[in-house]
């Protein structure tokens, strides 16, 4: 297989541009995580999340829905949440909702794809984020 030089250069430049756009948010997020982790004690999270199979992923899904940004950032946040003692249930729901639900982008989505479609898609994605989290936990325990 022959690699086309021009096409490769274009691919590198495209990848570099999208990473360059993500970088300030990523840097800011890591700075914020470091700050919050050292300011808020771990006991706070254990009080907030009570290992309830419905409430915990609901909070995770809700947090993920109102957040926006590159999925990479959600993985970093999710990893830090796990380090802080937050359960896999909440973290999974958070990551799935971050990627699939977009409350901030909802006006743009509804204008481009239709209001009804955007609302239904976001609601189902929100519910499925909770279901995916529960399934992930069950499969992890098996």
């Amino acid at each position, binding site marked *: 297989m022959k690699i086309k030089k021009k096409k490769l250069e274009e*691919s590198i430049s495209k*990848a570099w541009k*999208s990473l360059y*756009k993500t970088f300030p948010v*990523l840097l800011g997020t*890591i*700075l914020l995580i*470091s700050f919050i982790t*050292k300011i808020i004690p771990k006991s706070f999270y254990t009080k907030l999340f009570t290992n309830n199979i419905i409430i915990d992923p609901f909070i995770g899904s809700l947090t993920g829905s109102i957040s926006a940004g590159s999925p*990479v950032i959600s993985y970093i946040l999710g990893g830090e949440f796990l380090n802080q003692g937050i359960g896999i249930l909440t973290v999974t729901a958070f990551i799935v909702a971050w990627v699939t639900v977009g409350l901030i982008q909802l006006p743009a989505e509804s204008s481009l794809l239709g209001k009804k479609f955007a609302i239904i898609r976001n609601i189902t994605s929100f519910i499925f984020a909770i279901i995916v989290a529960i399934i992930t936990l069950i499969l992890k325990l098996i």
Partner: protein
Amino acid sequence: MNIKKIKKIPKPFYFLGSIIIVYFITFILDRNLFNVIINYFYEIFVKVIPIFIIIFILMVIVNYFITNKFIIKHLNQK
């Protein structure tokens, strides 16, 4: 009269800027806490860099092989 266009600062930089201000305030108020936070930031940042390199390589591969034409060709069956 020519009015020079001022380049708008991208929104992500506002986010980064505001967090740097918070760090600056922390540095003034409590230097020990600032050092602890910066060390922790460094730990995470070092962990993230190799992941970012892998993501960059994957993005280049995807951009090279999966072009807009390719997607349109395979999604435009109906």
